[in-house]
């Protein structure tokens, strides 16, 4: 098995499943974490991830197919999406795709799923389609506040990693998002985003 990526919480390997290429995502024990806490986190996230990936697929969101999940050893075998993370694309492409990303996030929220880790590394462009991956921190929730937490996170990422194109990407993201969730939900959730931001340390008090 070839190690593709040592991620933050899991290692990604290239493997075989029924004769075709597949991805093995394993959450290995972390030495620094207390074993009780560590086991709980790894197991919980493996369950959440395998469930959410399949569930959002049924709402029309492109995700990898889950072939197999092993809760004891905390690994998942899934379809390989051999594209490129949005994070690594040229700026003009990121700006263009932000609208699509906004739509996908809107679809998740509309169906009561919060992704929990919306970064530009967790969207992959493959054959002109944007795939969503990494559902380890996802939650089933219809609360607008939770959806706002999702939005705030991607805003933070755009504002840091993609600072020079922040304005245009965020604008496009919101356009896409609004087109799916509708104006009234959009207004409510974006308002909550600013509420969460104002709770941040030393935020400019409005």
């Amino acid at each position, binding site marked *: 098995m070839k190690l593709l990526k040592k991620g933050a919480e899991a290692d990604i390997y290239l493997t075989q499943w029924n004769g075709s290429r597949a991805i093995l995502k394993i959450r290995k024990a*972390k030495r*620094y974490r207390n074993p009780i806490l560590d086991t709980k986190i790894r197991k919980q996230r493996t369950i959440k991830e395998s469930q959410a990936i399949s569930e959002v697929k049924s709402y029309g969101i492109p995700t990898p197919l889950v072939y197999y999940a092993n809760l004891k050893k905390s690994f998942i075998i899934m379809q390989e999406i051999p594209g490129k993370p949005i994070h690594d694309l040229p700026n003009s492409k990121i700006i263009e795709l932000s609208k699509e990303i906004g739509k996908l996030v809107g679809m998740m929220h509309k169906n009561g799923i919060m992704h929990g880790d919306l970064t530009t590394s967790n969207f992959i462009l493959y054959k002109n389609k944007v795939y969503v991956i990494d559902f380890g921190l996802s939650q089933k929730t219809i609360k607008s506040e939770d959806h706002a*937490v999702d939005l705030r*996170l991607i805003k933070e990422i755009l504002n840091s990693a993609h*600072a020079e194109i922040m304005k245009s990407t965020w604008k496009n993201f919101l356009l896409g998002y609004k087109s799916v969730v509708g104006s009234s939900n959009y207004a409510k959730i974006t308002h909550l985003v600013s509420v969460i931001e104002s709770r941040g*340390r030393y935020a400019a*008090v409005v």
Partner: protein
Amino acid sequence: MIGLGVESTAHTFSCAILEKKGKQGKILSDVRKIYRPPEGEGIHPREASRHHVENSATVLSECLQEAGVTIKDLDIISYAAGPGLGPCLRVGAVVARSLSSYYNIPIYPVNHAIGHIELGKLLTGAKNPLVLLVSGGHTMLLAFLNKQWRVFGETLDITLGQLLDQFGRSIGFASPCGKNIEDLASSSSNYVLLPYSVKGNDVSFSGLLSATKSIIPKSKADACFSLQETAFAMISEVVERALSFTRKKELLIVGGVAANKRLSEMLHDVCKRHGCKFFVAPQKYAGDCGSQICWTGLLESQVKNGVSLDETFVTQSWRLDSVKVDY
């Protein structure tokens, strides 16, 4: 070039003198007086500022004496203009303004948080790090991009320092409680499951604080141990996330909580896993001190003139990601 830095954002009043030659900086003196609230209580801003006023003259003269310089030798004066407690900030600003106007020395308002980072970089030699700033006022993950420090993750409510202090005070310790909690935690290895709240690259500690308080009656030591294990694991995880996202090859921890050994042990392990160099600000300079203000002022003086007296502001809320860094 010789500078004086005045720090008074929270419980510490400190003056420091540094000499800058090219890119090198040398701390000639760093004198502090720390306000200690009574056991079980937090900082009272008025009491802290009174403490600062009462000690400012002694700290200043000791600092000059130790460095072997006089006020007339100073090329610039910097003071911490925020973020911090208003009454405390004003004391430092008044000291700096008085010296600046009487002796006609250029004056620089400095962002306290940037000070932590710049001094950490100076003392550890980190070049292009992901920075973890953990203190009573901040819990943030930062990386430098396009002339500004950008936030890659932060706390959504209270800071790690507040979490430790508020918990510590509830079991009768005096702020800052980090050391006491660490000592008591080391006497237990019985982990009690507590809420673990990581939201992407951000953390939230308020739920953890309440939950930990509820297990105090069973065992204070277990509570301390479990609190540290949970909170530091959350921090370590977001550090891992940010490292893998930014692909930085250096990690620098600064701020008062950087002194905690368990935290640095865990982060050391994280760095090993990611093939990343690990830097911790030396314990003496991890917490609030005049040196951090002085060094940042000296850096700013490379590209900017001092400000006029009516521009010498103080502000309680001043996010470091709003500061343009041109040096």
